[in-house]
């Protein structure tokens, strides 16, 4: 299930809620708890599938705030590989 996807992580929960509101019409995002592998951020992240990577990168280039990061996630619970992605 969802073996490969991306997550945007945030400095605060408010930032995550605001970003979801701004993106929801353009990108199919899902709010999920921040993965244990990515600990140095707030508790919630926005998950999206690879199909939306370009739209998300474009959004981040224009609207990204301090503390927001993008990660590529591959694998299943317990054996995930998480890689930071630049935009």
């Amino acid at each position, binding site marked *: *299930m969802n073996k490969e996807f991306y997550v945007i992580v945030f400095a605060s*929960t408010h930032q995550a*809620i605001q970003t979801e509101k701004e993106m929801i019409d353009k990108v199919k995002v899902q*709010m*999920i708890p921040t993965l244990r592998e990515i600990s140095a951020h707030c*508790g*919630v992240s926005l998950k999206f599938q690879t199909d939306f990577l370009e739209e998300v990168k474009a959004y981040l280039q224009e609207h990204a705030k301090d503390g927001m990061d993008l990660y590529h996630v591959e694998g299943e619970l317990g054996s995930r590989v998480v890689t930071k992605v630049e935009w």
Partner: protein
Amino acid sequence: MEHKVDARGLACPKPVIETKKALETLKEGSVLTIVDNSTARENVMKLAKKLKFHYDVKEQGDTFEIRIFKGELNQETDILAQSQPDLQDLVILCGNDVMGEGSRDLGDVLIRGYFYTLTEFSPKPKSILFVNAGAKLTIEESPVLEHLRVLEAQGVEILTCGTCLEFYGIKDKLAVGGVTNMYTIVEETSNAKNTVRI
């Protein structure tokens, strides 16, 4: 021997109660319950499933006939239970469309996170019961609909209180799982080893 229960016109959860009573008085044989609406039909079917009895359903115009055979299928259902080792004897009772008290915005974030994580976590609960505003989580507009569908596909029983759906005027919007009543809710929560309320 067949015992007949004419439950037409009886309000929920009466058809289930009457059927259960009839099954209890019967040593062997079948109980034929006649109901006049699909919710009652579903609830009687669920009773049969729960008691691990074989049943069949006939639609006769505006009525439904559910025939439950007592004392059969136990072996088959045991095999079914063994084939689902990922389920644990835990029932989750969800009484709100957000998680916790305080900010609704935060509660919305938390409830989405909760059900998402549940899809990844194993073993799963046996069933999740939605009552009061929790009923808003099983309808078309629910922010956790996708997660609940995944859980259902993983073998978790998703049940929503029919009275609650009716109260909020969203009965025709139910998009995942089945409709249940207080009789089943009490039974599920009483019979499970653990019940968690969120």
